[in-house]
């Protein structure tokens, strides 16, 4: 094949993965995630590696394919598969469009920085702590950016469209309620986007060769690659075009050498070389330097818009919560353990396995999965938890386990899930409407799918009674409980998930005489 085509193939593959990522993270109808996400996540290095460590097998062997590809051809992953890589390329593309005279030049080799970040990530990971992967894994960062910044924007746009059509009495489009908005999460995701965006806007793939631990790791492996890109000193005519298009800044025109460890395999150099000087073998040197032209970042504009947007969302979330209480509940609810999603086996398994890609957050139809701040403690920051103030877990739903790429949430199967106990219910009688207002309520028992919460006679009224052996910890009772500010019933997470007893059911006397008269 003519080497000129390498770049086209790379662009096609990378766009394919990127578009799938966009669709999976931004589908607000929650219909494509389960069928489509495996195509996206299978080859994602860190999620696949983590899943393999948890459940070894072909289903989690995507990272081995990436390793093999790296040993053969170098960092194919970085330019073709990694969605954050493609996102950076989009920033670089825009930057080039805005300034046609702009070109890349050789970048410093930040060896110490790179290796330090990689070592720290590996060491903390081996110590069972995923905090650095949570904030550094490129796939997960793409997920955070898409699900915390772009998804709310898509939702807002959808709602504007839906309400516009609604004014015309057309109900084909429906608005989607945003059940929880975390400003901190938007801020963190924006920060990641700004850092990655600014670096790529200014200096191509600088992020991949300084901060990204996956890039550094694959770079180390690519030192051993069988097929390396190099400059053929015999055919090179020293035009320097290759250096000007090298996003990684890894071409040294003076020495006519390519630092293949930092090469992300974009093949831009192949497509510009007029003399077949870029090959898979030789080296040589020449010098001819040009100045790099300053570029306008439009940073200020971007930041101000981000802040404006965040503020408008705060207003939105505040507008939604305005319930006026009659009497306030008095006993504070302090959960000892956060509830982790069904299929995560235990808190430690979950926090030690999740890279906070937020794919489950984007996929959860009930929107009960929300990114945590301190709920799991410091090391679990950003990882999703069951937020029963936002919603509750749909009894029949198993989507999160089906989409999770890292094995932090394992697929459970619909029937098993109905007995998975992720938490237990605690009742605070002092907060309960029946006790404080002396009226019937029963919202908790209504919503309970297993009747672990049941209303029993109490002073001419009915009070919830809890049988935790049947409780699955879905949070329906807690979500439905109308008391404020503190709930009268809440779910305490199980540090290790258990199996609930199947609710007892007795066949009701089903004999109905269809021929008899009506009782009125």
């Amino acid at each position, binding site marked *: 094949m003519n080497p000129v085509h390498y770049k086209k193939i790379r662009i096609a593959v990378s766009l394919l993965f990127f578009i799938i990522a966009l669709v999976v993270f931004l589908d607000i109808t929650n219909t494509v995630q389960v069928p489509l996400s495996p195509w996206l996540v299978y080859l994602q290095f860190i999620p696949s590696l983590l899943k393999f460590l948890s459940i070894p097998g072909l289903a989690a062997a995507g990272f081995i394919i990436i390793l093999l590809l790296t040993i053969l051809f170098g960092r194919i992953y970085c330019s073709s598969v990694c969605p954050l890589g493609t996102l950076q390329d989009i920033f670089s593309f825009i930057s080039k469009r805005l300034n046609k005279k702009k070109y890349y030049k050789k970048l410093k080799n930040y060896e110490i920085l790179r290796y330090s970040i990689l070592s720290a990530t590996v060491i903390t990971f081996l110590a069972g702590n995923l905090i650095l992967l949570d904030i550094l894994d490129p796939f997960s960062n793409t997920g955070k950016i898409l699900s915390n910044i772009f998804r709310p924007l898509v939702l807002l746009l959808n709602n504007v469209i839906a309400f516009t059509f609604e004014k015309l009495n057309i109900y084909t489009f429906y608005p989607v309620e945003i059940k929880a908005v975390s400003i901190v999460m938007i801020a963190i995701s924006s920060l990641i986007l700004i850092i990655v965006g600014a670096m790529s806007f200014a200096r191509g793939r600088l992020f991949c060769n300084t901060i990204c631990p996956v890039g550094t790791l694959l770079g180390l492996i690519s030192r051993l690659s069988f097929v390396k890109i190099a400059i053929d000193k015999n055919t090179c005519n020293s035009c320097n075009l290759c250096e000007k298009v090298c996003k990684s800044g890894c071409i040294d025109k003076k020495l006519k050498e390519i630092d293949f460890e930092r090469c992300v395999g974009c093949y831009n150099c192949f497509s510009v070389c007029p003399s077949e000087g870029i090959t898979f073998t030789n080296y040589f040197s020449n010098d001819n330097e040009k100045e790099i032209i300053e570029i306008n970042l439009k940073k200020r504009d971007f930041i101000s818009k981000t802040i404006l947007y965040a503020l408008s969302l705060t207003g939105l979330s505040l507008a939604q919560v305005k319930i006026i209480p009659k009497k306030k509940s008095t006993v504070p609810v302090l959960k000892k353990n956060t509830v982790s999603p069904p299929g995560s086996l235990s808190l430690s398994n979950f926090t030690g396995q999740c890279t906070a890609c937020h794919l489950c957050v984007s996929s959860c139809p009930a929107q009960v999965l929300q990114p945590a701040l301190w709920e799991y403690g410091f090391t679990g920051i950003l990882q999703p938890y069951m937020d029963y103030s936002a919603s509750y877990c749909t009894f029949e*739903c198993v989507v999160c386990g089906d989409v999770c790429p890292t094995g932090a949430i394992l697929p459970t199967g619909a029937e098993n899930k109905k007995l998975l106990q992720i938490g237990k219910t605690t009742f605070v009688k002092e907060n309960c409407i029946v006790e404080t207002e002396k009226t019937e309520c029963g919202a908790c028992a209504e919503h309970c799918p297993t009747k672990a919460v049941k209303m029993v006679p109490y002073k001419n009224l009915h009070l919830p009674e809890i049988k935790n052996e049947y409780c699955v910890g879905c949070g329906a009772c807690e979500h439905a409980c109308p008391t404020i500010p503190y709930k009268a019933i809440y779910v305490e997470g199980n540090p290790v998930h258990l199996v609930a007893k199947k609710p007892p*059911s007795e066949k009701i006397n089903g004999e109905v005489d269809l021929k008899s008269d009506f009782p*009125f």
Partner: protein
Amino acid sequence: MNRRDFFKKSLQAGLLAGTTLTFGNYKELLAFSKHLPPSPFDLAAIKGGEPDVMFDKAIASLGGMKAFVKKGQTVVVKPNIGWAVSPERGGNTNPLLINRIVKHCFEAGAKDVYVFDHTCDDWKRCYSNSGIERAAKDAGAKVVSGASQGYYQNISVSSGKVMKDAKVHELILESDVFINVPVLKSHGSAELTIGMKNLMGIVWDRRFWHRNDLHQCIADFASFRKPDLTIVDAYYVMKKNGPRGISLEDVVTMKSQIIGKDIVAVDTAAARLFGADPKEIDYIKIAEEMKLGTTDLSKLSINRIIM
């Protein structure tokens, strides 16, 4: 906006003038019903058939759907679609019945028929698992989400004791005809859910009801806009563990239906059918005290059909 304002204002005016107006025989006063003989029955009760066939017979005995829906009117059909369970579980209104009601509305000349509920479980799962979305769409209805606050408009409940205002789905405010189609089932906190309790699915903030004397709120809200017709689905009846139920074991196949204009009378009859004493159900008692309808079935002419 004009249309909505118009209906809102006319509704409020109607309520101010006295709630009896909406309940009274004002339809007979209007010109287009002159060729229809008024039905001799206030209430129809039927048992022993399939939901759709029973509805055909029962509505015919009340003068047909033409007595309720005029040509060119918009209709909102409000089933109970609270839970993401299958029809046999008796958690939601029977989809066959909804399908047939929508067809009758169109045959009577309805311009548009809308179907929605403010569900408890995730709405899309409720709509699909209940079979109602498919059934309603097949009959030509427009199935609308009830899961977004933007659809709900502030109204005042002028004769409410506890509930003075609420946010109500705009379809209820904008549609000419409101058909309430509850499923009869047991209910942990309201004892039974029938017609009046089903109206909880047209408001946004349900927690308010639970916080502020559920039974009083149910009765209060029933004074807001009484449905033009209430059709109680008692085909699969959840006898215990309601309103969600845990399994098929909770359900009895009663193959019955009760139809009427007076929501209190319909709830009374349905409670009897269930085997409960309507006098024991607070919201029915309160509703009668508030003169929203009658619990004295002996005063009504009831068409009892056994198939």
